[in-house]
C-alpha cells in the first residue's frame, strides 16, 4: 500500500504526460493544461502528506521495486527514498511546478502545440521526482538524464526556429559532457564500494580504512563535473543562457528553480563522500565563487531581460556551490529554496512582461510598464529585493548565511562573493528600472497592446512573491533554525549547527551584506533613474562593455577550440582516412588485377604452347622427383 502511494507520486505526472502526448490533439487548448496541472498538484499533495508525516515520525519511507541494472557483483535496484532532503526538494519541485503549470495555462493558451508543451512539462516533473527520490546513484542518473532530455525538448519547443533547436542541442550535449563525469564517478564508487546505494555507500565510507583515497577523490571530482554540467558552472555554463530560447515558464521551472539545482542536490546527497576529500571541496568552492562573479559581471551588460536572469541564475548557483565547498550543505539547500521562489517569480514576471510586449525581450524597448502591469511590477519588485539581499526578504537570510560560511573559511572567496552580490543587486535593479520605470520606449503598436496578464498568470506570481518574502523564516539566524534541525538526519557532518547563535562578526557581516545590496541599488538608481540612462544599441557598445555584452566571447572561443576542430576532423576522416582505408582494401584487388595482366599472357590460346609447357612441366617434376 505504501509502495503504491509512493509510486503515485511518479505515476501522476507520467499519466498526465501520456494522456497529453497521445490524446492531447483531440482535447482542445484548455484541457491539456488542466490535466497536467491536476497531475502535478496530486504529486504535490502526496509530497505534502509525506512531508507532514516525516515531521512527526522522522523516519524515511523507502520503496524497493525490482532490479534495474544487474552487474556481475551487484545490481542497481529501483529504489525510492523519501527522506528529509528529498521531501524538501519534492515540495519545491511539485509546488513551484504546480504554480508554473497554472501560469502556463495562461501563457501558452494561444500556442497550437499546447498539449505537447504540457506533456513535456509533466514528463519533466516525473523525471525530477525520480531524481530527487532516487535511493541510489543509478536511479538518480535516470532522472538526471531524463530532466536533461525534457530540457532539450522544451528549449526546442518552438521547433521551427533552428536557432532555438541549436540552443536545445547545445544544452543537451553540454549536459552530457557532465553526465560522463557523473557516470565515471559512479563506476569508481561502484568498484570501490560494491554498491551505489546512498545509505550503503555512506555506511561503507564511515570507515575508509583500506579504500584508495586518491581514487575516491577522483570519484568526487567526476561527480562534481556532472554537477557542473547540470548546474551550469564554469566551464560548462554556456548552455544555460542559450536555454532561454524555450518558453518562459520552462525557463522558470527548469532553468531556474528545479533542474539546475540538481547538481546541488546531488552534492548534498553525497555529502558523506565530499566531506572526506577537502581538496575537492576547495575546488568546488573556488569554481562556485568564480562562476558567481563571472556570470554576474556578464549579467550587468545584457539587454535581453531573460538573459540577465539566466546569468543571474548561473551566478546564484555559483554561490550555492561555494557554500557546498565549505561543507555548509544546509546553507546551500536554504539558498536553493529561496532562490527557487524569487527566481521563479522573476522569470514568470519577465514572462508576463514579454507576454504583454508581444514577444519582445529587449529591455531597451521596454520601460514604464509599472503603470499598466501593477501586479507584475509589485511581485517583480519583491523578488528583486529578495535576490539583492535586502532584509527582511528571503534572499537576504540565505545569502547572508553563505557569506557567513565564506567568511569563516576563506576571506578571498568571501570578497569575490561579496563583489558578485554587489553586481547582482546592480543588475537586478537595472532590470527593474529599465523595465518598469520611466517612459515606454517600444513601438506604438506594442504600447497599444500592453496589458496586465490574466489571473492564471498573476496568481502564481503573487504566491511566489509571498514565498520570496517569507521564505527566509525556515532558517533565521536568531536561533530559530528549523531547516538545520530538519536536515540533520540526512547530512552527516552538519557544520555550524551548534554555534549558530550570532556573534558580533555575524552582525557585522549582516550589515556589510545589506550595505552591499544597498550600494548596488544606489548605483543602479543613480544611473538608470537619476541619469535616465538606457543601454546603447548593439553597434555603439565599445570597450570593456562590449566584451561583457559579448559574454567574454566564450561561445566563440568554444566554437573555435572544440566545435570547429571536430568538424575539421570529420572532414579529414571523410576525405582522407576513409579513402585511405578503402583504398588499402581495394589495393589487394588492384594488385591481383595488375598481376593478371602479366599472367594472362601465358594463356595465349595456342594448344601447342600449352602442350609444350605441360610437357616441360611434367619433365621437370619427374626430374625433381628423381633428384630427390
Amino acid at each position: 500500500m505504501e509502495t503504491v502511494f509512493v509510486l503515485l507520486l511518479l505515476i501522476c505526472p507520467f499519466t498526465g504526460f501520456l494522456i497529453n502526448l497521445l490524446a492531447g490533439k483531440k482535447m482542445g487548448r484548455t484541457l491539456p493544461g488542466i490535466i497536467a496541472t491536476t497531475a502535478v498538484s496530486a504529486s504535490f499533495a502526496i509530497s505534502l502528506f509525506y512531508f507532514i508525516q516525516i515531521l512527526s515520525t522522522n523516519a524515511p519511507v523507502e520503496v524497493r521495486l525490482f532490479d534495474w541494472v544487474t552487474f556481475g557483483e551487484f545490481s542497481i535496484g529501483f529504489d525510492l527514498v523519501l527522506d528529509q532532503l528529498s521531501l524538501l526538494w519534492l515540495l519545491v519541485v511539485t509546488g513551484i511546478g504546480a504554480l508554473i503549470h497554472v501560469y502556463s495555462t495562461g501563457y501558452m493558451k494561444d500556442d497550437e502545440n499546447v498539449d505537447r508543451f504540457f506533456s513535456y512539462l509533466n514528463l519533466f516533473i516525473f523525471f525530477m521526482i525520480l531524481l530527487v527520490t532516487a535511493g541510489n546513484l543509478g536511479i538518480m542518473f535516470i532522472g538526471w538524464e531524463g530532466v536533461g532530455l525534457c530540457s532539450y525538448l522544451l528549449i526546442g519547443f518552438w521547433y521551427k526556429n533552428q536557432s532555438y533547436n541549436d540552443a536545445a542541442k547545445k544544452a543537451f550535449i553540454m549536459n552530457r559532457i557532465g553526465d560522463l563525469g557523473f557516470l565515471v564517478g559512479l563506476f569508481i564508487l561502484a568498484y570501490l564500494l560494491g554498491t551505489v546505494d546512498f545509505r550503503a555507500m555512506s555506511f561503507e565510507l564511515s570507515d575508509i580504512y583500506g579504500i584508495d583515497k586518491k581514487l575516491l577523490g577522483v570519484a568526487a571530482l567526476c561527480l562534481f563535473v556532472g554537477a557542473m554540467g547540470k548546474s551550469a558552472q564554469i566551464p560548462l555554463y554556456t548552455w544555460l543562457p542559450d536555454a532561454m530560447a524555450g518558453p518562459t515558464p520552462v525557463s522558470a521551472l527548469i532553468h531556474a528553480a528545479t533542474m539546475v539545482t540538481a547538481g546541488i542536490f546531488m552534492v548534498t546527497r553525497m555529502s558523506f563522500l565530499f566531506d572526506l576529500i577537502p581538496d575537492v571541496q576547495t575546488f568546488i568552492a573556488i569554481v562556485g565563487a568564480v562562476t558567481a562573479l563571472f556570470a554576474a559581471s556578464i549579467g550587468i551588460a545584457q539587454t535581453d531581460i531573460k538573459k540577465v536572469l539566466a546569468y543571474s541564475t548561473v551566478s546564484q548557483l555559483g554561490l550555492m556551490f561555494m557554500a557546498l565547498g565549505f561543507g555548509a550543505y544546509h546553507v546551500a539547500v536554504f539558498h536553493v529554496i529561496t532562490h527557487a521562489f524569487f527566481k521563479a517569480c522573476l522569470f514568470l514576471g519577465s514572462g508576463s512582461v514579454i507576454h504583454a510586449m508581444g514577444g519582445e525581450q529587449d529591455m531597451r524597448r521596454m520601460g514604464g510598464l509599472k503603470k499598466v502591469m501593477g501586479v507584475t511590477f509589485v511581485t517583480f519588485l519583491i523578488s528583486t529585493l529578495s535576490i539583492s539581499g535586502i532584509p527582511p526578504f528571503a534572499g537576504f537570510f540565505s545569502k547572508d548565511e553563505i557569506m557567513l560560511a565564506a567568511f569563516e573559511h576563506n576571506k578571498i572567496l568571501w570578497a569575490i562573493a561579496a563583489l558578485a552580490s554587489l553586481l547582482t543587486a546592480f543588475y537586478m535593479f537595472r532590470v527593474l528600472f529599465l523595465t518598469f520605470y520611466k517612459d515606454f520606449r517600444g513601438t506604438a503598436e506594442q504600447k497599444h497592446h500592453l496589458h496586465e496578464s490574466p489571473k492564471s498568470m498573476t496568481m502564481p506570481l503573487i504566491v511566489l512573491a509571498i514565498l520570496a518574502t517569507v521564505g527566509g523564516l525556515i532558517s533565521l539566524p536568531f536561533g530559530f533554525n528549523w531547516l538545520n534541525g530538519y536536515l540533520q538526519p540526512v547530512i552527516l557532518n552538519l557544520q555550524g549547527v551548534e554555534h549558530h547563535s550570532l556573534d558580533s562578526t555575524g552582525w557585522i557581516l549582516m550589515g556589510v551584506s545589506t550595505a552591499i545590496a544597498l550600494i548596488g541599488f544606489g548605483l543602479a538608481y543613480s544611473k538608470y533613474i537619476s541619469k535616465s540612462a538606457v543601454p546603447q544599441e548593439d553597434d555603439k557598445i565599445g570597450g570593456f562593455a562590449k566584451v561583457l555584452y559579448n559574454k567574454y566571447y566564450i561561445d566563440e572561443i568554444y566554437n573555435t577550440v572544440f566545435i570547429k576542430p571536430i568538424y575539421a576532423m570529420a572532414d579529414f576522416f571523410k576525405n582522407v582516412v576513409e579513402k585511405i582505408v578503402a583504398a588499402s582494401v581495394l589495393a589487394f584487388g588492384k594488385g591481383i588485377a595488375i598481376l593478371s595482366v602479366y599472367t594472362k599472357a601465358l594463356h595465349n590460346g595456342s594448344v601447342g604452347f600449352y602442350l609444350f609447357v605441360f610437357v616441360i612441366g611434367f619433365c621437370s617434376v619427374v626430374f625433381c622427383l628423381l633428384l630427390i
Partner: protein
Amino acid sequence: MSNILQEIGINNYIYLSVLLFCVGVLGILFRRSAIVMLMSVELMLASANMLLAVFSVYHQDASGQVFVVFSMAVAAAEVAVGLAILVAIFRNIGSIDIEKLKNLKG
C-alpha cells in the same frame, strides 16, 4: 609366352615403349594438325598399354592385360568423341590447324 619375353628381354620392351612414347610426345609438340596430334596421343596410349601388358606377363598376373583391354575400349570411345569434335570444328572454321584455334585465349 614367357619364352618370348625371356628371349627378347624386358629391357628391350621398355625401350620400345619409351621410344613410342617419345615419338607420341614429339608428334604432339611439333605437328599442327589436330588429327595428327590425336594420333600421337593414341601412340602414347598404345605405348603405355604395351608396357602394362609386358609387366603383366612379367609378374604373371593377368589383371594387367585385362586392364589393357578396358583401356583400349575407352581409347576407342575417346577417339570417336575426339574425331567428332574435330569434324565439328572443321565444319565451323574450315580448318583443323591448331594455330587457328585460339578462342581460349585468356
